[in-house]
């Protein structure tokens, strides 16, 4: 028994242990309460003990300060002081600083790609629905069956909006989908499909049935053994060769499938780690209660195992998000590719720094949101569960 709370009133019937209490009172009365010694005093003390506590550390500190001095002021000058924020490209040619005017002039193409200008509102709403569904799903109290309907409905809406040809919306060829819209589509659909598929693969890999286990092992090891780029190439170049003549399958759909298959294999290995970390007693307690396999997994094992592996899972999902940029290699116009093509416009040719900083910012916002959400989720899930 670690603390007094545990000896609460319910223990009256079993209170023999509590009778040692007078001994503690005695100690408190005769001895002053000892506090831990104070080790650091103020800012100076902190600096001394952390940055200047040895000759080598002092040297390293000065070296880093020197680097900061060399890098930060010129960057601030370039990015904020000498920079041009609005206007046409010609306004930038004279200036020394950053040409942020690149962003307002090109943002439409970067975000929407070749999507027809008068229909871009549809793609915009589709993006809001995708992000909105993800944001809506963040709360644990919403994780129930109705969430599946929310996702189903959201997916349907996004498909109708992007594709058109229904409800009086003009049809838009999927070859015209691009930019941030395409990046979000590939990653949101990719992650949400890969996660449950990965869990099923992990369970299959730990199955008692040799055939299922072998299939899962072969699948996971094969997928992990090749780079995503080669899977994308296969989906774009090789796969159509196997189809009967006249049948074509949408290129985005094929790339999407490749991303899901690839990500799921990595998720599976992460989840398997979590399953292996579960103590045997948890399985036995669930089994001895009469729960069947799926009930045991869903109610007892997976909630704990998936929680343990939140950090590596988010790692996999974040790299999956960034890896969607590889679809550029099979000529899909994702965010990175639309950005690059704006730079081939002679007017904006010299401003790749600004362009890449801009899309790096977009990638960063999404990745950082995922990372900080995962930290919050971990805290929430462990609240109250331990001492």
């Amino acid at each position, binding site marked *: 028994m670690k603390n007094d709370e545990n000896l609460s*009133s319910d223990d009256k019937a079993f209170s023999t242990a509590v009778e040692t209490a007078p001994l503690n009172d005695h100690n408190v009365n005769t001895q002053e309460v000892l506090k831990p010694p104070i080790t650091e005093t103020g800012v100076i003390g902190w600096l001394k003990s952390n940055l200047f506590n040895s000759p080598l550390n002092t040297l390293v500190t000065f070296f880093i300060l020197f680097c900061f001095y060399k890098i930060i002021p010129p960057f601030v000058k370039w990015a904020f002081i000498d920079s041009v924020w609005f206007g046409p490209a010609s306004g930038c040619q004279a200036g020394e600083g950053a040409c942020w005017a690149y962003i307002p002039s090109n943002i439409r193409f970067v975000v929407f790609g070749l999507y027809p200008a008068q229909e871009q509102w549809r793609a915009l709403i589709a993006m809001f629905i995708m992000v909105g569904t993800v944001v809506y799903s963040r709360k644990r109290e919403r994780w129930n069956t109705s969430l599946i309907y929310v996702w189903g409905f959201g997916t349907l809406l996004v498909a109708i909006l992007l594709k058109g040809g229904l409800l009086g919306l003009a049809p838009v060829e999927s070859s015209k989908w691009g930019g941030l819209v395409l990046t979000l589509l590939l990653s949101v659909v990719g992650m949400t499909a890969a996660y449950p598929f990965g869990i099923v693969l992990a369970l299959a890999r730990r199955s008692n049935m040799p055939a299922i286990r072998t299939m899962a092992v072969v699948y996971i090891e094969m997928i992990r053994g090749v780079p995503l780029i080669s899977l994308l190439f296969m989906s774009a170049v090789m796969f159509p060769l196997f189809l009967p003549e006249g049948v074509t399958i949408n290129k985005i759909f094929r790339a999407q499938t490749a991303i899901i298959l690839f990500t799921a294999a990595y998720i599976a290995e992460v989840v398997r780690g979590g399953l292996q970390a579960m103590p045997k*007693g*948890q399985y036995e307690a669930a089994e001895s*209660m009469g729960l069947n396999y799926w009930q045991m997994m869903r109610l007892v094992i997976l909630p704990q195992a998936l929680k343990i592996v939140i950090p590596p899972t988010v790692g996999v999902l974040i790299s999956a998000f960034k890896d969607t940029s590889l679809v550029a290699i099979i000529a899909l116009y994702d965010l990175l590719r639309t950005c690059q093509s704006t730079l081939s416009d002679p007017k904006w040719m010299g401003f790749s720094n600004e362009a890449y900083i801009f899309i790096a910012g977009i990638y960063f916002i999404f990745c950082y949101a995922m990372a900080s959400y995962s930290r919050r989720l971990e805290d929430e*899930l462990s609240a109250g569960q331990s001492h």
Partner: protein
Amino acid sequence: MDINKNDFIIKIKDMHKWYGEFHVLNNINLNVSRGERIVICGPSGSGKSTLIRCINRLEEHQRGSINVDGIELTDNLKNIEKVRTEVSMVFQHFNLFPHLTILENLTLGPIWVRKMSKKNAEEIAMEYLAKVQIAEQAKKFPGQLSGGQQQRVAIARSLCMQPRIMLFDEPTSALDPEMVKEVLDVIISLAEEGMTMLVVTHEMGFAKSVAHRVIFMDGGMIIEENNPEDFFSNPQNERTKLFLSQILY
């Protein structure tokens, strides 16, 4: 309490089990009457835990037969699940579900296995929590309780399944000494209500006061069985004598 010596709820006949080449259970024959309380003791590795784990098929036996309340234990999953709803187990390390509150730990089985309504299951759970004197902790998580409290919760969780048989696998061996009594008190109160139980334990005082029958196992075999008075005062087998002389000091 009288027990009907012919109304057997568990029938184990010529049962064997091996772990690889190791013969962990060797020709076990054991009949347990309805309402009977059996304490199983023996040196570690003697197969006593494995024996009771065979009764709810956490372990498979390889020869002979085990019949629990009329159901033969085979590979048939449906039968196994049926037996498990009748047979509850309390483990040495409690095995509470750390991600669920105490109340949720107790209602999980009744809701999903017994198909009880949530409200109904919670009422029953609170009743049993009160019985093990821990009702105030219903909203806490297992990690916030002491070992003794956790084991009492585990017993309440087993009771919520309203089993006919309870198996205890060294229920007090993982506890700090000052918490053993609170757990044994709960088990004794169950005994007074006539629950059929098999208890693997080294608490010999408990065995003397509660058991109808004490079984001594060594090397995977039942070496000796007797009523507690004769078992402790007049052991027959040399190995039993040696074992008792080593644990009673």
